[in-house]
């Protein structure tokens, strides 16, 4: 009995200490791009054998673990602020690079049988719903802009994120821009003091609640709504048009900002100009250390990033993300070259 146990322990010890032939990188962060990242990493693994282990713990988690240095790369839809970037510099003696990978839309999804896609919402109504001021679906403020839809006399179940989320950051960023009330009472952040509603973990969690709860409303990345057959609202944009989220409307939103994109790529795409722009669009970034101690990993990361800028972009549309505009890809290539390989 003892001998068998010893043998098993010995075998496991040997297995564990064998230097692996393939490279393994660990990353963590946003749930927003999880659908496409998991596809990318799976494809890339089949192509090269290199394992990119990505855990979607939320943008807040991605930023934190990048600061702590417990991962090789992070992912977030809320770009890091000066203080966070400073912490990386002081802890790891290198700066952090933001590399946008795709664009996506934060959509407002709901569960109203019989209503279908394209419920119209204005920024004011949206803000009031999330502040708990509008409590029922057949409130006059909602019915007056949706004369063609029959809205039930049901309570609105508000769902939001309970974890530190870039998606939350995008959504609250939008509300802060369009509603003075929201700006003063709640504000923008990856984690906020929600006036009302139920919290769930991850994009998956919010989508799950909306899917299972009649009368629920939630904010998720487009892919999560589409993949689950959940309807989403059309939002009134800056020019006054009600726009549905789509690859075209997100790209249109980006086009205005792209001309003045800062060199560190940290820019929001909220409340864009343009009659076909979807107002809650956003980049999502990978967070990469400029100077990684393990050069093999750095090379693997650089190769992957280059692949994602070329082949990777082809998968975006199919998974309901918008591929990056050409100008951004060019800027990315310059940024990727900054990653030191020596």
């Amino acid at each position, binding site marked *: 009995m003892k001998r068998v146990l010893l043998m098993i322990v010995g075998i496991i010890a040997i297995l564990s200490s064998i230097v692996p032939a393939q490279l393994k990188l660990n990353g963590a962060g946003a749930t927003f791009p999880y659908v496409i990242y998991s596809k990318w990493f799976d494809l890339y693994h089949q192509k090269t054998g290199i394992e990119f282990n990505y855990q979607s713990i939320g943008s*807040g988690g991605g930023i934190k673990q990048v600061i702590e240095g417990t991962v090789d790369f992070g992912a977030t839809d809320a770009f890091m602020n000066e203080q966070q970037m400073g912490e990386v510099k002081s802890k790891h003696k290198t700066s952090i690079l933001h590399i946008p990978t795709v664009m996506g839309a934060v959509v407002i999804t709901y569960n109203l049988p019989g209503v279908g896609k394209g419920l119209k919402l204005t920024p004011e109504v949206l803000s009031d719903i999330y502040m708990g001021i509008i409590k029922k679906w057949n409130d006059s403020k909602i019915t007056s802009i949706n004369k063609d839809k029959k809205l039930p006399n049901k309570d609105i179940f508000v769902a939001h994120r309970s974890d*530190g989320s870039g998606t939350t950051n995008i959504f609250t960023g939008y509300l802060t821009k369009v509603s003075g009330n929201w700006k003063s009472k709640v504000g923008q952040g990856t*984690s*906020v003091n929600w006036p009302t509603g139920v919290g769930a*973990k991850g994009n998956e969690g919010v989508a799950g609640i909306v899917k299972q709860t009649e009368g629920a409303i939630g904010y998720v990345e487009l892919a999560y709504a589409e993949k689950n057959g959940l309807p989403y609202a059309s939002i009134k944009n800056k020019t006054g048009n009600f726009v549905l989220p789509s690859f075209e409307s997100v790209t249109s939103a980006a086009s205005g900002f792209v001309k003045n994109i800062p060199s560190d790529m940290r820019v929001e795409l909220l409340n864009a100009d343009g009659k076909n722009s979807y107002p809650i669009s956003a980049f999502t970034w990978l967070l990469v250390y400029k100077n990684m101690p393990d050069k093999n990993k750095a090379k693997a990361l650089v190769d992957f990033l280059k692949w994602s800028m070329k082949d990777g972009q082809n998968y975006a549309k199919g998974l309901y993300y918008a591929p990056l505009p050409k100008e951004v890809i060019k800027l990315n290539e310059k940024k990727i070259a900054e990653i030191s390989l020596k």
Partner: protein
Amino acid sequence: MQIINLIKRKIFKQQAGIISVEAPAASFSIKNLLGGKNVGDLVFQNFLRFFASILLLIVVLMVIQMVNQSMPSIKQFGWNFIKNNTWDPVKEEYSAWPFIFGTLYSSLLALLIALPLSLGVSIFLSEFAPRWLEKIVSLLVELLAAVPSIVYGLFGIFVLAPWLRTTIEPALGNKFGFLPLFTGPPYGLGMFAAVIILVVMILPIITSISRDVMKAIPVTQREAAYALGATKWEVVKIILGGAKSGIVGATLLGLGRAVGETMAVTMVIGNTPQISYSLFEPGHTMASVIANEFSEATSTLHVSSLIEISLLLFIITVILNAAARLIVWGVTKKYKGRK
């Protein structure tokens, strides 16, 4: 004379089998050096002591770490941390009362429901059930304790919450909506679901300990009561009186379990830091906020506040468990001798 002694020694050696008996002559001098003690004994004792001390070390280290890491938050908020209501990561204002409330409310409510149920079951097991039935039911109750909390959580999200949302909560809301307990829209997810799951989770603990304590009371007590013409239930009342402190201990242990429960609660409670007496409303507990936010808290103050919450949780569970064990030990020891 000496030959007989030698033969005796040989026979003892044979009887001891593979266990070798030290020849006293060889270790005479060492024995004297050590003042009559055996080398092996000393080595062994210290070896064992070393490992037992690791336990001590771990607990001490944990406490030190927790206090250390909570310092920023303690310095910033002081006692207000426990009293105030805001948990605002944007404004960097943190206070634990919503979570303390959530933990206490859910656990105490669960206890209120679980205690009579547990007592009923343990009375059934120790007094009413025939031996074979008692064994089966005890086994089933203990299997209930073995179900991992993630499976309870899974069940909570996919079965319990929808059922509450579509059937129970609307019904309760319609009939008893005037009570503060049943106000608000029926989410399904929220305090009600958390309390139900906690009841199921602490029931086995209270039941098995109460049953053991009741069984430990000597048969003579029961026989005496029957002799005086008592009905079975009246005998039970007497037994309960004797088992009182053990049951209190069991209750405290159950409460400790409820307070520390993380996964099952966080999956169904709705993760909203708010104070509400309504069962329909979502809430938050100390354990679930740590699970939700720990891996993402970036600012030092946020992390420190979370760790201060874990320190508070630790203190609460230590007090509950220590009190419980002291009481339960006392009772079963009291009766072990008399049997």
